[in-house]
């Protein structure tokens, strides 16, 4: 199973190497990769249907508890089949849709990465591994939305989507870590038994809020929904695949998966009900005001996601069945509608629903697919959509309280969604063909076959619900921990309330379609309310944030070296001074210090003079000479205090530095006094404070007892172990030899740097001059 995930990454990588060859007509062959995976997962259907769970364990970073524990159960299987199945169709579709696109190889690469990470997401049983795949889907989605990277709108939408889902990813990580802390495991299957513990834990609310944040951002729930319509800037195959069928359902997947772990509490259920309810109604209502086909579909997708959240929030067995069926139903018809939209866009050059009509004459197969999808979307029998809608009403009607309100909500949403389906799936094809659209070329088979397949599947599953009942729906519902023996899907339940409600929904939808015509003035009307929308609010917030960081950068990252130094040093001074003032007693034990001798005092005086001269002189040469003198006096201290090796090295280096300086001095700029008097005083005060602090620190450290363990070890073993008597040298070449090895490498790099800086640049400049 791990291989199934990795294949996608390998395939993505191979695009880098062989992409050039695959760009042309061969690109359709790439569809075999997801197809093979689809067949691979389809093999497991009987196994899963028998109630088994397939697992595979691979340790990854065991020290952090990150393991690739893969688990294939009903829920994971449904998603895997959707990812690979719709993936296959999308891959084939893309080969025609983006034919001869110069970056087709890159596009396929991103798609492969997405497919692999989405598979990883649904298959992993470990929360942290799941997080990594979760983020990978966000990242691949970013690249796919921004695929038309020359278009600023695309880039902006991609960035919005990434920041929203990225924030969600962080919440996911935080929630997952807390969950791991509380339960003591990162494995979701092991958390299942700890539902009681979690609900009564003090962190429960926080964990659930974090997980909700992750799920709502990913699945575009109100008020984070706005990135999804923006994401429609992506090429249509991407919208089909990521933003309706699979990726946006990752949040739903997470909620579904965690329902038995975190669910069964009022907080969990009510929040989901409210958020899902608001989302579905708000988004469904918005479809009335859109004229762009993809815009309509985007909002109806958000509404569908809202329904799913809502169903999970109900938390009853009926609602889980309804959710499981609706995930599949929605994937089938919405993918069809998107593919159909892509075809219309590709061949007519417009997606404006007000300009499209009568297309059945020129693209009949697309019209058929659109019609099938619209029927399934509206829930007209015998499509699988009918089944899905029935189950939704069933679960709301039988809910413990507020059944009427909830059912009304669901009906309203479904009417609006049904309307959106008619507008998108039927309207462009019926009526009179406008001039200009009569001569549209007949679509390529790779364009019309995939939507037809999906559309027809919607009807097959509707007519024969037993096909999915035992194989998919039962195992999915069983992942929530309820018994599944009495589940029985059927199209015809006889004349009852649910059927009546269905009829009301369908006919109201049709009536709405005939009464309400989408046009651009309605679109502008709704735009006036943009100022109240969450999108506007969050964008304003992010603008504030940006201005704040601009200001911050201008103040602190202003590019002036000395300001950086000043800030750092002043901060350091205040920090250390604060500690020193509070925690230290100034007791200097003069008796432990060695006595002064006259030659020490003399060399100190020389040094002070040299430093003063180096700082205040106006001549460069004098300053260099003064630093030289300073170095030699330090050398003298090394001699006084038994460090002959240091004295020798310091002497040699000092000589060389002075030589070096003298060699380049006249190529260097003249000394200038650029600062005014005030700045110099200010800098002087900072410098003196810093120096004083260092002195005090040094004295404080000297007053502390010293730990000589390491030195003693080296001293005792220098001759015994290393056959040397000069301990300093023994440390350098033997005890700490590897450090020295690295050090001489650094030296060599510095020399190469100097050489490169002087020689190589000069040569290229010379070449220019010639």
């Amino acid at each position, binding site marked *: 199973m791990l291989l199934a995930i990795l294949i996608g990454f390998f395939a993505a990588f191979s695009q880098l190497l062989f992409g050039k060859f695959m760009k042309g007509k061969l690109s359709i062959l790439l569809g075999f990769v997801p197809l093979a995976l689809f067949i691979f997962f389809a093999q497991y259907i009987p196994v899963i249907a028998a109630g088994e769970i397939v697992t595979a364990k691979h340790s990854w970073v065991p020290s952090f508890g990150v393991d690739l524990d893969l688990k294939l159960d009903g829920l994971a299987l449904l998603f895997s089949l959707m990812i690979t199945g719709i993936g296959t169709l999308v891959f084939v579709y893309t080969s025609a849709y983006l034919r001869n696109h110069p970056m087709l190889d890159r596009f396929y690469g991103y798609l492969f990465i997405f497919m692999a990470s989405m598979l990883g997401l649904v298959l992993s049983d470990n929360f942290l591994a799941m997080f990594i795949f979760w983020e990978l889907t966000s990242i691949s989605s970013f690249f796919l939305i921004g695929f038309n990277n020359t278009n600023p709108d695309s880039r902006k939408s991609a960035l919005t989507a990434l920041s929203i889902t990225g924030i969600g990813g962080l919440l996911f990580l935080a929630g997952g870590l807390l969950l791991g802390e509380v339960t003591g495991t990162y494995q979701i299957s092991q958390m299942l038994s700890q539902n009681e513990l979690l609900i009564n834990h003090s962190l429960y609310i926080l964990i659930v809020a974090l997980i909700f944040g992750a799920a709502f951002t990913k699945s575009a729930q109100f008020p984070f929904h706005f990135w999804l319509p923006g994401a429609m800037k992506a090429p249509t195959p991407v919208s089909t695949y990521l933003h309706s069928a699979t990726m946006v359902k990752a949040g739903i997947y997470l909620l579904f998966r965690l329902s038995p772990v975190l669910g069964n509490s009022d907080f969990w259920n009510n929040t989901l009900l409210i958020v899902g309810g608001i989302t579905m109604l708000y988004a469904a209502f918005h479809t009335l005001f859109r004229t762009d086909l993809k815009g309509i579909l985007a909002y109806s997708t958000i509404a569908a996601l809202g329904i799913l959240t809502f169903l999970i929030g109900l938390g009853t067995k009926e609602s889980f069945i309804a959710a499981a069926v609706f995930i599949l139903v929605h994937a089938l018809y919405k993918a069809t509608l998107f593919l159909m939209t892509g075809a219309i866009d590709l061949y007519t050059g417009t997606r404006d629903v007000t300009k499209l009509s009568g297309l059945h004459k020129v693209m009949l197969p697309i019209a058929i697919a659109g019609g099938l999808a619209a029927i399934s979307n509206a829930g007209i029998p015998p499509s699988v959509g009918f089944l899905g809608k029935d189950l939704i009403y069933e679960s709301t009607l039988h809910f413990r309280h507020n059944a009427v309100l909830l059912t009304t909500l669901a009906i309203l949403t479904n009417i609006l969604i049904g309307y959106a389906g008619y507008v998108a799936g039927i309207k462009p094809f019926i009526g009179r063909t406008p001039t200009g659209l009569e001569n549209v070329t007949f679509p390529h088979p790779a364009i019309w076959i995939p939507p037809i397949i999906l559309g027809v599947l919607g009807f097959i599953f509707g007519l024969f619900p037993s096909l999915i009942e035992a194989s998919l729906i039962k195992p999915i519902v069983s992942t929530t921990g309820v018994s599944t023996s009495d589940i029985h899907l059927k199209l015809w339940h006889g004349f009852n309330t649910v059927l009546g409600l269905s009829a009301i929904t369908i006919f109201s939808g049709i009536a709405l379609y005939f009464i309400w015509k989408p046009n651009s003035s309605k679109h502008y009307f709704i735009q006036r309310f943009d100022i109240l929308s969450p999108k506007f609010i969050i964008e304003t917030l992010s603008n504030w944030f940006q201005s704040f960081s601009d200001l911050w950068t201008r103040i602190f990252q202003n*590019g*002036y*070296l*000395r300001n950086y*130094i000043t800030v750092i*040093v002043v901060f350091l001074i205040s920090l250390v001074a604060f500690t020193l003032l509070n925690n230290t007693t100034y007791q200097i034990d003069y008796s432990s*210090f*060695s006595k*002064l001798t006259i030659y020490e005092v003399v060399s100190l005086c020389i040094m*002070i003079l040299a*430093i003063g001269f*180096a*700082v205040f002189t106006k001549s*460069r040469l004098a*300053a*260099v000479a003064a*630093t030289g003198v*300073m170095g030699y006096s*330090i050398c003298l*201290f*090394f001699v006084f205090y*038994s*460090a002959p*090796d*240091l004295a020798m*090295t*310091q002497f040699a*280096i000092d000589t*060389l530095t002075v030589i*070096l300086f003298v060699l380049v001095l006249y*190529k*260097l700029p003249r*000394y*200038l006094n*650029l*600062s005014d008097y005030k700045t110099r005083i200010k*800098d*002087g005060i*900072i*410098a003196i404070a*810093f*120096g004083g602090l*260092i*002195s*005090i620190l*040094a004295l404080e450290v*000297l007053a502390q007892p010293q730990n*000589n363990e390491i*030195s003693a070890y080296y*001293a005792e073993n220098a*001759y015994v172990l290393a056959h040397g*008597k000069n*301990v*300093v040298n023994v440390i350098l070449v033997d005890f700490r030899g590897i450090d020295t090895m690295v*050090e001489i490498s650094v030296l060599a790099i*510095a*020399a190469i*740097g*100097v050489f490169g800086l002087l020689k190589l*640049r000069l040569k290229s400049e010379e070449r220019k001059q010639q």
Partner: protein
Amino acid sequence: MEFLLAIMTGVLYAAGLYMMLRRSLVKLIIGLIIIGNGANLLIFLLGRITKGAPPIIPGDTKFFADIYADPVPQALILTAIVISFGLQSFAIILVKRAYQVVKTDDLDEMNTIEEEV
């Protein structure tokens, strides 16, 4: 003496920092050298200074019989001195190249020229 050396270290740090805060490039490098020396002296001082007892095992013995200066800070400083030579020469050359290209010694002016180059 330790007291005076501690003060000396402070003076080195102060002088180095003051030079680094100047706008002139050459002063920046001199400041860097002075602060480097200050750091060496600080490490040396904090390793406790000992007179007349270099960390060299005398004559035919295999161990130290008497007190000896701490060899570890000495080894540290020795490498620091050599490395600082590499650093200084690189910095000097960098300044020289920068001066050749932008024709100014003023760090502030360099900031504005950057974009044009």
